[in-house]
C-alpha cells in the first residue's frame, strides 16, 4: 500500500511539475500567479499521500500550511500599487 501511495504522489508531482512550467511561461501575469496556486494544490495532495504512506502525521500539518500560504501568495500579486490596471490585456493572445 505505501508503495502505491508513493507512486500516486509521484504521478501528482510529475503532472504538477509539467503544468507548473507551462503556466510559469505564460505571458499573462494572472496565469503566472496561478502557478503558485497549482503548486499549493498539487503539493498538498502529494504531501497527504506521502504522509499516509510513511504514517507521519506531521506531514499533514505541512500540507495544511502549504495550502494556507499558497492562498496567501495571491496577496503578493494583488498588492502592487504601481501596477496599472489591465497592463497585461494587450499581451493576451486570443
Amino acid at each position, binding site marked *: 500500500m505505501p*508503495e502505491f501511495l*508513493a*507512486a500516486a*504522489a*509521484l504521478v501528482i*508531482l*510529475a503532472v504538477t*511539475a509539467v503544468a*507548473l*512550467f507551462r503556466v*510559469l511561461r505564460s505571458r499573462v*501575469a494572472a496565469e*503566472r*500567479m496561478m*502557478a*503558485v496556486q497549482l*503548486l*499549493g494544490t498539487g*503539493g498538498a495532495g*502529494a*504531501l497527504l499521500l*506521502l504522509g499516509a504512506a510513511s504514517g*507521519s*502525521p*506531521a*506531514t499533514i*500539518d*505541512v500540507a*495544511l*500550511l*502549504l495550502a*494556507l*500560504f*499558497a*492562498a*496567501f*501568495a*495571491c*496577496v*503578493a*500579486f*494583488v*498588492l*502592487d*500599487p*504601481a*501596477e496599472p490596471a489591465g497592463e497585461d490585456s494587450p499581451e493576451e493572445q486570443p
Partner: protein
Amino acid sequence: MMVLLDLALAAWLLALALHVVMERNERSAIIAFLALGLLLGLVWVRLAAPDVALTEIAIGGGGTGILLLRAEAALRGRGKHEEGATRGGKLAVAAGCAVISAGLGFAVLALASPAPTLAPAASDAIAATGLGNPVTAVLLAYRALDTLLEKVVVLLALVGIWSLAPDGIWGGAPEVAPAAVPGPLAWLARILPPFGVVIGVYMFWVGADAPGGTFQAGTVLAAMWLLVIMAGLLPPPDAASPALRLVLVGGPALFLAIAFLGFIVADGFLAYPEGFAKPLIVAIEAALTLSVAAALAMLVAGPARKAPAR
C-alpha cells in the same frame, strides 16, 4: 519508488531554480521564487525534517514574497534605464555561484558517514522536560540560550529598520496598504485570517509534542496580520505605540525573567525547576509567538512613512 520520487523532486527543484535565475521579468522571477519556497517545503519533508519544512513554507511563501514584491515595486521606474550587469559581469557571478555550489556539494559528500550525532542523547533526556518534540526540547531547554539571543537579534533588526525613518516621523506608522485597495485583496483579507489564526495557534500548541512551534506559529500570525493591514481593514500601528512595544518586548522579557528565576528555584541561569519545565516552556513559547509575529510583521512593513498620531 521513494528514490524515484526524490530524484524527480530534485530535478524539479533544479529546473525551477534555473527558471528563477533565467527569468527576465523581475515580478515573474519573484513569483517563481515563491513557488520555489513552497517546493523546498516538500523537499524538507522528504529529508525527514518537518520542522524545517514548516518554517520554509511559512517564510518562503509568506514574508519573503511580500518583501521582494514591495521592494520591486519601490525600485520600479527608478534607475530602470541603467542596465545592471554586462555579459562578463554575469558570467563572473555565475562562475562564483557555481564554485560555491560545487564547494558546498563537495563538503556535503565529504561528511563522515554515519554523521556524528547527539540525537540519541537528546531523545534520552527528553522525559525530564515533559516535551514530546525533540526540536522544541533543543530550542527551549538544552540550547535555550541560543534561542533567547536569537529573539533579541530579531528585535535588534527591527530597531535597525525603524531607524531608517526620517527624524520628523520617528515613531510613526509604516505605510503598507495600497492607495486603492483592490476588491479581491479586501475579500481575501476577510476570508483567510480566521483560518490562518486558528492554524497559527494550532502550530504553537502542537509544537510541544509534534513539529511546529514558536517561529512557525509567529510567521503564520504575522502573515495574517500583514494581510489585514495591507487590505486597509486595520491601520498599521505606530512604532511608538506602547501596546506594540509591550508585545515586541514581552516574549524575550518573560524568557529572561524565567531564566534569572532559575538562579533561585533551580540550578542556575535558564534552568527549569523539576516538574515545571513544560508549563514554563509553553508560557515562554506563548509570549515569544506573539513577539515573533509582531516583529516579523513590522520587519516586512518597513520603516515609518507617516508622522505618529499624538
